[in-house]
């Protein structure tokens, strides 16, 4: 009964406390969805109030009273006029709702890609995200960097969505609705964030054991910051002689079958690209902060942090783990 108020009011109040509320859009697709949502919510809200009132009225008005306890009420079998009325009015409502819906579907799905658009290929893997910028030659993981888009010179980001294994779904509620990543079925979506900041989301399509820890971070950068980030990512990996032992352990174990560190023999693609690992604030798709302790813990035993992730515990000696972790910390 209190669903109406909870549906309409509480989310708005909570929107301020949640970074993932659909009521706080920060880009055009999310904004047009919200406008449509408010329209649909108002229409369904009106229907709710009307029918709810009818129900409450008939229940209280026509309840059995001691006065009429022994007589049957008038037996009414139906009325064609009334049936017509409550058929035609809903039909009209549906037509209106549909037109509003179709407009937004078209506006979002069929939007042309402008010349200045940034292109990113997002590949879903069991429990982490791979992001490739084909035009910029960048490969990174889990944290997507895109430029803010101003209305006069729009620089929206167009994502091509692929999957390396099972289905996943890309969902940043404040930037756009979700779209699935399905193997052998490329999809597309776009967003044009209106302000800079970090926006959160996560995989929305059940993809296996660690579906819950397949989090997403989008960093919307100012044009200058984005350019700087791009330049940083385009560099080959830092070669630091002081961590040579760690690097050797890394390159002589199976790490390199799964991970790439550009400019070194490590060129595996099963796991995230580690070339600029330290430029990311989290590891393992948001399962933990990217701190030295967490890195060490992760390399020592991934299951302890993310039970069921597809990176095996490599059973390295403590010294080797320390060495590899120090090597990782130089990859900025």
């Amino acid at each position: 009964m209190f669903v109406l108020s909870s549906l309409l009011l509480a989310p708005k109040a909570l929107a301020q406390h949640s970074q993932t509320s659909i009521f706080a859009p920060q880009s055009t697709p999310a904004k047009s969805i919200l406008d449509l949502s408010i329209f649909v919510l108002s229409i369904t809200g009106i229907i709710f109030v009307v029918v709810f009132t009818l129900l409450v009225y008939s229940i209280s008005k026509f309840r059995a009273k001691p006065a009429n306890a022994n007589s049957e009420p008038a037996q009414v079998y139906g009325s064609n006029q009334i049936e017509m009325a409550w058929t035609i009015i809903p039909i009209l409502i549906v037509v209106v709702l549909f037109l509003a819906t179709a407009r937004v579907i078209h506006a979002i799905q069929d939007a042309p890609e402008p010349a200045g658009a940034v292109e990113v290929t997002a590949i879903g893997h069991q429990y982490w995200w791979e992001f490739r910028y084909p035009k910029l030659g960048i490969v990174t993981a889990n944290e997507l960097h895109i430029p803010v888009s101003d209305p006069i010179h729009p620089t929206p980001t167009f994502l091509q969505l692929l999957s390396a294994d099972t289905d996943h779904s890309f969902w940043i509620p404040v930037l756009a609705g979700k779209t699935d990543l399905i193997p052998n079925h490329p999809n597309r979506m776009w967003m044009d964030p209106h302000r800079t900041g970090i926006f959160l989301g996560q995989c929305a399509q059940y993809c296996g054991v660690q579906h819950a820890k397949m989090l997403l971070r989008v960093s919307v950068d100012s044009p200058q910051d984005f350019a700087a980030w791009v330049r940083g990512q385009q560099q080959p990996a830092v070669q630091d002689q002081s961590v040579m032992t760690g690097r050797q352990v890394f390159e002589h174990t199976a790490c390199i079958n799964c991970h790439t560190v550009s400019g070194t023999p490590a060129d595996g693609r099963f796991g995230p690209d580690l070339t600029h690992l330290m430029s990311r604030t989290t590891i393992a798709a948001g399962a933990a902060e990217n701190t030295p302790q967490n890195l060490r813990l992760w390399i020592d035993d991934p299951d302890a942090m993310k039970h069921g992730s597809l990176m095996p515990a490599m059973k390295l000696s403590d010294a080797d783990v320390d060495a590899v972790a120090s090597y990782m910390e130089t990859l900025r």
Partner: protein
Amino acid sequence: MSSDAITIPALQIQEKPWVDLLHEWVTTVDHKRLGILYIVYALVFLVFGGIEALIIRVQLMHSHNNFVSPQVFNRMFTMHGTTMIFFVVMPVLFGFANYLVPLMIGARDMAFPRLNAFSFWLSAFGGLLLYFSFLGGSGLYGAGSAPDVGWWAYAPLTARAFSPGHSSDYWTLALLVSGFGSIGTSINIIATILCLRCPGMKLNRMPLLAWLNLVMAGMVLIAITPLSAAQIMLLIDRYLGGHFFDAQAGGSAVLWMHFFWIFGHPEVYILVIPAFAFLSEIVPVFSRKPIFGYPVMVAATICIAFVSLSVWAHHMFTVGMNSYANSFFAITTMAVGIPTGIKIFNWIGTMWGGRILFKVPMLFCLGFLFQFLIAGLTGIMQAAAPFDWQLSLSYFVVAHFHYVIVGGILFALFGAFYYWCPKMTGRMLSERLGRWHFWLFVIGFHMTFDVMHIPGLLGMPRRIYTYEPGRGWDTLNLIVSIGAFIQAIAILVFVWNLISSYFKGAKAGNDPWDAWTLEWSTSSPPPPYNFATIPVVASRRPLWDLKHPEDPDSLYE
């Protein structure tokens, strides 16, 4: 109609050794006993499914909880969904259909009694097979090996690469087997209704319950077939090197989704139409008026059946269909709301000007009306495809369909239990416990499922075993979980009511509700042959005619 139909004395039940009794129940082909078997079977699985739900809710009570491992959690929501849909709601509805349809159309049994028994035991075997997966599959170690692919089992999660061992096979085979059972029962219901109606009962004089079950059975035939086909294709993929759904080898993961939802959406109407049927019988009796707009109710049901066959891809708005397909499925989905709305209006029309008695069956029906209204409206929201790009796969959807299945179907079912149990056992259920059951359930239900919409709007996806703090989801999830326990307590009250009333409830007599359809003309419980002489009817409410010879319905229809 002949009057001796209403004067059968209650059956004399002799004490028999329990082996004989057991043997009788296992070998029975009587539609009433099979109906009760279906119902009891469903109640047992309701307890299993309920325990799984509670495990899920304890785990989600607060962020980063460690009550169960992710593996166990994933098995729990898979088993919970599969159990509730296929082994609770389906069988309990078949049980009521089995029990009531022959009685209400004045028949002595179903058209094919042996097929009836066979179908029941197939379904029963399906459920046992599913639960055997906890022990079988890859053995007894760890958490066992129940399926963990979700109740839609989307490809390619079910491919051998991602689902080694046999857990997915248990899921596939259990549904395949119980699907054949459902098809058998549906053929039986259709044949019974078309061929065994008593003299005078033309199609347009059938109780709405019979009409709606006829439509439901027709939909089962259409909907279960693609599901069974898909299960067989999946088995071919897994064991015979097929590539229907194997995306790595050029198959299509989206194909499975289409197969599943072309079954899945009609399925939800298969579940809700019998609930509509209960309402269409109970609301008139407790409003003391005939159903408003009988022909329109029948037409709306048939309309729902057809339209609901063309809406399945509204479950796939996020898989990247083109804008035309999305628009098509948006309008068909919104259109299904029209006949559904008409039904709600007709029930209100039935109460309008009536003399409403608030007995427990009616309370549950009123709960249905309020909750189904809201469920329909959240459905319309999801039908607006762009809105659904936000709502889909989130807790909002979970709240929507629980609003339908629990707030709607389960409420109608409880109404049906309180209404027809006196007929089945000969004893009334306690009104006092019934009211406790009703109010506890209402409170628990609204705590859980009203609140559950909000985390969805705040970005919480479904099927996650844990979540991050600081997203505004913690308190909401705690409330949701508390509500779940209140519902569990209400169910315990209900079960206690069933058991205690069975032994010492007040005697029901033939017609405790002063009702109008044929099942109330025979004794409670009815004798094996139902009617001493086959009744003859002249209107939709034969017992009204009998009780009001001065003003019979047959004058107006």
